[in-house]
């Protein structure tokens, strides 16, 4: 674990001590080497499931795919931000990279924490660098409002979580994930157990987000710079899912009845946010709402608490992380050229940038869950386990899948096909860096098809 944490932490001195000329190649190379070493985590060969252990930090087949995803994402953040930060003063560039590295340290410690309070502290700690990135490097005035929504939605959800965790510590004597499975269920009055369930789950449901508490997400994703959007969509949402999966073991049997309204809310969210996507004019807003929809399916899969549901949720989280981040990178390539996110103004780009259209096509296909990509595998497992729970959910999930396909296709057709607007005269061609960035997002997604066993988690 230290062979990943120490180099990540020392990315901060690297950024400050490297001469400006070699700053970006150095940071990118170091973060890629860290990503390479992080692949060793996938070797989970222990009987108990927990590997890489010391008293504070361990990994198991649930956290390993998420950790590898976040380690892989850091070099991609560096690649994506290189161009739009190149005109900024050196100290601002270095501050930006330091914030991303610090965020990465918190994320790694959050996913590998063995104790729930450490997970909670790291979960909250990730808010600060993200808030700074959104409010200081965002492009429009709305970024301040977006930062406030982002911060306070999560904080309001997580204060009850702190109280609930402290109460759990009081009752069971430990909050270590290694033994929490074996503790006695906490006995309390029915009403208080319901309130405790909501307190435990509230923070993660806001973070996922569950439809209904999702208003912070379109704002934060749209106003953030590309690196902020990427890390938000790919990793920070998954912190919520991971927290839910870890904490639900202590919440049985209250979950049987309490999960019901939230599953329905999540599935309704899939349909509603999908419909909202069909009406969006802002490209990044469309991708943000699509994230809410996909995460709604993940929420439903986790709340179902069956092996297939949980496995499907984990697969969908990883696949969505790569896909959503890829779409935000594509939106940024548009934005850097046209300085607008309005789809009506930046359309027909296949005529001007045909190679990028190929990436748009693959990313849109991944978003609409084309087989044999893992997006479909995750969705199918969740839909099957939901059908097993109640056949009526098929109505919502079926309509949701249909609408997802519609808006993904709509996004592709709007941005790529149709007439190129007459004011688009001098668009620079797609750079090698942008093609590489897209390849590094979508090639791992395709490679996962060949070895899905790394994503099955500890469940089947």
């Amino acid at each position, binding site marked *: 674990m230290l062979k990943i944490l120490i180099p990540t932490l020392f990315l901060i001195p690297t950024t400050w001590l490297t001469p400006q*000329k*070699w700053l*970006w*190649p150095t940071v*990118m*190379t170091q973060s*890629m*080497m860290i*990503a*390479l070493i992080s*692949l*060793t985590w*996938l*070797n*989970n*060969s222990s009987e108990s499931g927990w590997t890489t252990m010391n008293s504070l930090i361990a990994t198991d*087949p649930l956290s390993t795919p998420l950790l590898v995803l976040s380690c*892989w994402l850091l*070099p991609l953040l560096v*690649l994506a931000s*290189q*161009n739009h930060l*190149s*005109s900024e003063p050196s100290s601002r560039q270095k501050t930006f990279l330091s914030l991303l590295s610090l965020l990465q340290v918190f994320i790694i410690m959050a996913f590998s924490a063995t104790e729930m309070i450490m997970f909670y502290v790291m979960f909250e700690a990730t808010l600060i660098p993200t808030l700074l990135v959104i409010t200081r490097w965002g492009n*429009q*005035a*709305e970024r301040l409002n977006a930062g406030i929504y982002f911060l306070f939605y999560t904080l309001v959800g997580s204060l009850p979580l702190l109280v609930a965790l402290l109460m759990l510590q009081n009752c069971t004597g430990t909050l270590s994930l290694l033994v929490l499975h074996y503790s006695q269920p906490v006995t309390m009055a029915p009403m208080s157990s319901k309130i405790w369930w909501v307190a435990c789950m509230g923070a993660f449901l806001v973070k996922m987000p569950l439809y209904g508490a999702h208003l912070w997400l379109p704002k934060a994703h749209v106003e953030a710079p590309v690196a902020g959007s990427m890390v938000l969509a790919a990793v920070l949402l998954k912190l919520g899912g991971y927290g839910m999966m870890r904490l639900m073991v202590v919440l049985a049997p209250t979950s049987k009845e309490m999960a019901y309204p939230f599953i329905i809310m999540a599935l309704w969210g899939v349909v509603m946010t999908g419909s909202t996507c069909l009406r969006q004019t802002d490209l990044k807003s469309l991708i943000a709402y699509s994230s809410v929809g996909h995460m709604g399916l993940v929420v439903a899969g986790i709340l179902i608490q069956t092996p297939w549901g949980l496995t499907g949720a984990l697969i969908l989280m990883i696949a969505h992380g790569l896909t959503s981040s890829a779409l935000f990178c594509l939106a940024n390539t548009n934005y850097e050229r*046209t*300085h*607008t*996110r*309005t789809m009506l*103004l930046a359309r027909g780009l296949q005529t001007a940038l045909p190679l990028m259209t190929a990436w748009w096509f693959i990313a849109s296909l991944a978003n609409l869950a084309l087989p044999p990509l893992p997006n479909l595998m995750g969705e199918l497992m969740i839909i099957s386990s939901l059908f097993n729970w109640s056949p009526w959910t098929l109505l919502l999930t079926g309509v949701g899948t249909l609408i997802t396909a519609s808006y993904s296709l709509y996004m592709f057709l709007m941005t790529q096909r149709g007439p190129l607007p007459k*004011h688009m*005269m*001098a668009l*620079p061609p797609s*750079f*090698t*860096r*942008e093609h*590489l960035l897209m*390849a*590094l997002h979508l*090639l*791992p997604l395709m*490679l996962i098809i*060949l*070895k899905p*066993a*790394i994503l099955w988690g500890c469940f*089947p």
Partner: protein
Amino acid sequence: MLSRLTRLGPTLPRILANSGLRFVSQSPPSASAGSATLSELQPPHAKDSDGHGEVNHYLKNPDYHGFSADPEVDQWNMRLAFFFGISMTLVVGGTFVNYLPDHGMREWARREAERLIKLREAKGLTLIEEDYYDPSKIVLPAAVEE
């Protein structure tokens, strides 16, 4: 009609907000028509920020890869990104992941099941017994009146 778009306030993209700027060429008459169109796409402050508006990097460096204005750094950055990203992480890392041991003995379980099915079908036995324990060996206590 374009002026009605101002009701969108700050959410209006800058390119539409400068509607007055759009259709009037601001470049001096000697400048080429191409650059006038390019400058309309920039935010208004870009012209003033030390000329750091939209720079066409291909003029100075025809082999521009998108990384840096300095050609040497640009080329090295490209090489490092491709080497560590594709050759090391995807190829070497992918090979490592491919050859990971059989986690949870799942692949073994599948192979063992297929082997047993083949064996039992050849012998004509049922594939799996309905009772896990042999019923003749289970000793139940006599029914006691409570």
